[in-house]
């Protein structure tokens, strides 16, 4: 135990947020540069940490445990396994890109430019606030993935709402943003409060024998504080956690906040919201629902699988019907999250590995989609699909990146999401063939909505209104380029990620007390490596 990697990774952006927030309004430029610097430094730190991670070592590494509120057995306990590590890396990677993308965005507060009053208001409200919130959010995101204490996790899980709430409501776009922000907050808060009951329940139950604790490590396992829980109680507690995560994830039928929130946010906010924040939901299911209440998790498998399938199909169908790009991408995410939960609750190694990988890859692909869509919207000022046509003629680079991002979203082989989606399918099929078949409908629909959207916006004759559309600038290329590169790179060679994920998944499976169905598929990375178009 030498370097407190995780604490540094949390503290750096948190301090950065404080500094940026305290900068005077006139120093907006400095604020942006500072933000970018801090996020890049964090990225470097996280990457360095990732290289120090030993896949063959213990499951949790970089652990730090410091008492926080002894009265409730609460600790500041952080540590990462493979899944959390990758999610942290994802967050650290996406944030600088979002900062770059948001570099020149003007505050869209509905005021007409030129009017003195609103210009004044714009200046007052724009600038450092947004960047400070991004930094704060980054700190919390890293913290929430690193948390090894249920209480700490819960605190950050809830506290994250506030920066996002302001990022949507204060710095979002469109007239609906206020309602969207409130809806987002109330949905999340509602789920969070149910989870609070469950968290308190966990504590009270852990206090049955001796002092209560929130330490994840003390709670799980056969000799953990929650062992021997009576099934009914465990199921209620599971439900408390699960509903909160399902809202966050977002899962049908509690997904309705997402399209509004994503549609009303800045593209950067949407990237973080869908790319990282919602992963907290699925991550929570994997880490907390399954491992704290293994018996209940097994009991709930079928309901969750059904909900996941509904999400997959429903999200895809609604995506097709959308007329707004941002909302469309948001609905595709509902569908994708269905795949992730399906993978998790398939209770097979492949399924869970795929789901974990899916979380990362979905972050890349959706992030890229949102960013490019955001660039387009920033140019033309509208998100409606009907307002665009033939963009590829005016802005080929933009259209190209958009295509790659879209293809990755529909899991084209060779691009990274394919690996994860494939694994989920394999895992699900091993669990039960029917869900796998139904889920495959989602794949077909994905092709439909992505390609159709591309066709409607990018192809065809270029209308005069769009003729002066600029192509991607250097800054924008820097923002979206790394994502495209990562998508392609891991599409071809996903092994490093799987190496990190697999041990964690195996531990989880063991914890839950399930094992793969009898005819095992061999080791997953072999399946993935030979997975180029190969089928069972």
């Amino acid at each position, binding site marked *: 135990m030498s370097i407190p990697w995780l604490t540094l990774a949390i503290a750096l952006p948190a301090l950065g947020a404080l500094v940026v927030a305290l900068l005077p309004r006139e120093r907006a430029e400095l604020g942006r540069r500072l933000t970018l610097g801090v996020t890049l430094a964090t990225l470097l730190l996280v990457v360095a940490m990732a290289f120090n991670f030993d896949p063959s070592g213990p499951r949790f590494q970089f652990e730090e445990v410091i*008492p*926080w*509120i*002894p*009265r*409730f*057995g609460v600790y500041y306990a952080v540590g990462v396994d493979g899944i959390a590590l990758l999610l942290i890396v994802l967050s650290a990677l996406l944030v600088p890109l979002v900062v770059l993308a948001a570099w020149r965005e003007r505050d869209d*507060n*509905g*005021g007409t430019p030129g009017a003195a009053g609103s210009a004044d*208001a714009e200046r*007052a*409200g724009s600038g450092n606030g947004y960047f400070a919130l991004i930094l704060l959010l980054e700190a919390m995101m890293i913290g929430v993935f690193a948390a090894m204490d249920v209480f700490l996790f*819960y*605190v*950050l*899980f*809830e*506290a994250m*709402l*506030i920066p996002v*709430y*302001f990022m949507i*409501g*204060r710095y979002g776009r469109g007239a609906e*943003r*206020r309602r969207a*922000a*409130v809806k987002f*907050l*109330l949905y999340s*808060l*509602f789920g969070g*409060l*149910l989870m*609070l*009951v469950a968290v*308190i*329940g966990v*504590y*009270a139950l852990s*206090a049955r024998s*001796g*002092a*209560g604790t929130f330490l994840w490590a003390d709670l799980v396992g056969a000799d953990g504080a929650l062992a021997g829980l009576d099934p009914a109680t465990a199921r209620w507690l599971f439900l408390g956690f699960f509903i909160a995560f399902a809202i966050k994830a977002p899962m049908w039928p509690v997904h309705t906040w997402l399209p509004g929130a994503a549609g009303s946010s800045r593209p950067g906010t949407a990237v973080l919201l869908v790319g990282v924040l919602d992963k907290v939901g699925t991550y929570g299911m994997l880490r907390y629902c399954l491992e704290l209440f293994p018996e209940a998790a097994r009991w709930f498998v079928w309901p969750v699988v059904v909900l996941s399938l509904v999400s997959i199909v429903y999200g895809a169908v609604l995506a097709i019907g959308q007329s707004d790009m941002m909302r469309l991408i948001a609905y595709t995410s509902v569908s994708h999250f269905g795949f992730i939960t399906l993978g998790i609750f398939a209770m097979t190694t492949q399924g869970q590995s795929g789901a974990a990988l899916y979380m990362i890859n979905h972050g890349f692909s959706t992030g890229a989609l949102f960013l490019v869509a955001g660039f387009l919207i920033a140019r033309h000022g509208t998100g409606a699909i009907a307002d665009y046509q033939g963009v590829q003629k005016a802005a080929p680079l933009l259209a190209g990146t958009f295509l790659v991002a879209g293809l990755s979203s529909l899991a084209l082989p060779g691009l990274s999401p394919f690996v994860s989606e494939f694994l989920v399918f394999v895992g699900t099929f091993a669990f039960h063939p029917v869900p796998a078949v139904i889920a495959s409908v989602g794949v077909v629909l994905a092709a439909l909505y992505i390609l159709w959207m591309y066709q409607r916006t990018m192809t065809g004759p270029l209308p005069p209104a769009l003729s002066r559309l600029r192509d991607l600038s250097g800054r924008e290329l820097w923002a979206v380029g790394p994502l495209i590169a990562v998508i392609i790179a891991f599409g071809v060679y996903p092994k490093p990620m799987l190496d990190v994920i697999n041990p964690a998944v195996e531990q989880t499976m063991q914890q839950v007390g399930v094992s793969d169905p009898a005819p095992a598929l061999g080791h997953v990375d072999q399946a993935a490596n030979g997975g180029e178009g190969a089928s069972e």
Partner: protein
Amino acid sequence: MPHTALAAPVITTQPPQIDYALLAPLLVVFAAGVIGVLVEAFVPRPRRRAVQFTLAALALVAAFVLTVVRVALLPAGGAGLTVASASIAVDRPTLFFQGTILVMAIASLLLIAEHRHGESAFAAQAATVPGSEEERAHVLAGSQHTEVYPLVLFAVLGMLMFPASNDFLTMFIALEVMSLPLYLLCGLARRRRLFSQEAAVKYFLLGAFSSAFFLFGIAMVYGYAGSVNFAVIHDTVAAGGAGALPGGGPLLLLGIALVGVGLLFKVGAVPFHSWKPDVYQGAPTPITALMASGTLVAAFGALLRVFYVAFGGSVAEWRPMMWVVAVLTMVLAAVVAVTQRDIKRLLAYSSVVHAGFVLTAVVAASAEGLAGAMFYLAAYGFTTVGAFAVVTLVRVHEGGAESGDIASWAGLGRTSPVLAGSLALFLLAFAGIPLTSGFIGKFAVFEAAVSAGATPLVVVGVLSSAVTAFFYVRIIVLMFFAEPAEARPRVLRPGRLTGAVIGVGVVATLVLGVFPGPVLDRLSPAPGAGTAEAQSVPGGFATTADLFANR
């Protein structure tokens, strides 16, 4: 023989021993109040304000220091002491409540003393008829009511005594000493005097009504136990009744119910909450701040002491009642609060909801419940004082009345980000968002309730939290996301005193939210110690009285 005892009442020739050191804070506050009255009588008018403020501030600070010092006077091992013929209990809960009340009182005093162009929040001359020439003359002459200071001191004295009372008589006196000055203070608002007077009348009539119930409840309990001393009542309950009145069970039940009514009224729990919105809205805002923090803390302190010590042996009897009241309070108040359009009314309803949350801890009847309630009250007190401090600054126009209409607060986040940010923080704390004190408080009380097996209550509490979050969030939306209103309110620059109060509120809200450990540790015995007892329902509840180790 009862009659002989009556005829020749035992007048003890042994004068009672009084440990003045343990009563010092009370005596200091009382003495300052009395001196304040003399100051009113003999110090020339122009100098009165300065003298009164200095006197009051010194007294409160001294009382606070003495309260802290008294912690060292307590015997080790969590035991407490009783003073003045066992009428006042000095134990850890007492000291915590008194310390909290004093801090709240100091903060409120700063708001009360805040002056702007020679005007305070109080009427120039309360005796004049609003709108009359006489009133105008007083306003122009710059008259001011410096009586406010002694009145506040007396109210604080009552608040300090209320949770420390160890028998019902002292408690009743403390209740009245606390309430009577507040009734008057409510009617002294400088602006909207009709509102203010109306608030005073309502508060007074309902307050007197409720204290009559309280008193009749005491009479019933006295009839049952033959004494009003909490320890004696506790023992009598344990023994199954007093000798003179076998089968007095109904008396006890009636007594518990009526005493409960009186205390729940002061706390402002549904269905005894109807005074709160009106009074909070009508009273001068600094006084509202005092009531929302100090009075609430004191009332809950008394409630806890009565129900944990005196009625600690009959938890099974009062628990259902508290359940119902807590549920009603959390649900109804939250729903009604959603429709409010005035910030002070909204904060009043929010205070009602919070009372409901604390009641869930009371229901727990355990060490955790006590500690949770104590922490919650302290956290809520700081936050609410800060919130009302912000309210004092938003005016319809420079030098005008406070702008209570929430709609007119639109866009405040743009024009005064710091102020709006502070208020937003307070509102988030009310909503119980993590990393604020409100969250830890909520966690503490809910945890206590769950440990005591009141999980359904906690679920109700959580759902009502979600509803309350809605209206807190609505204000934040208005302030930060909406365009500034046409008739935008004028935001005064916070004076030094108000600024200090807001600053303290912000700091306390954050510190208690992020590092609650030290405070929580001092509130309760080692974690887990009380839990085992609490769960062995219902016989184990005899030990709740030991939480207040004053017996």
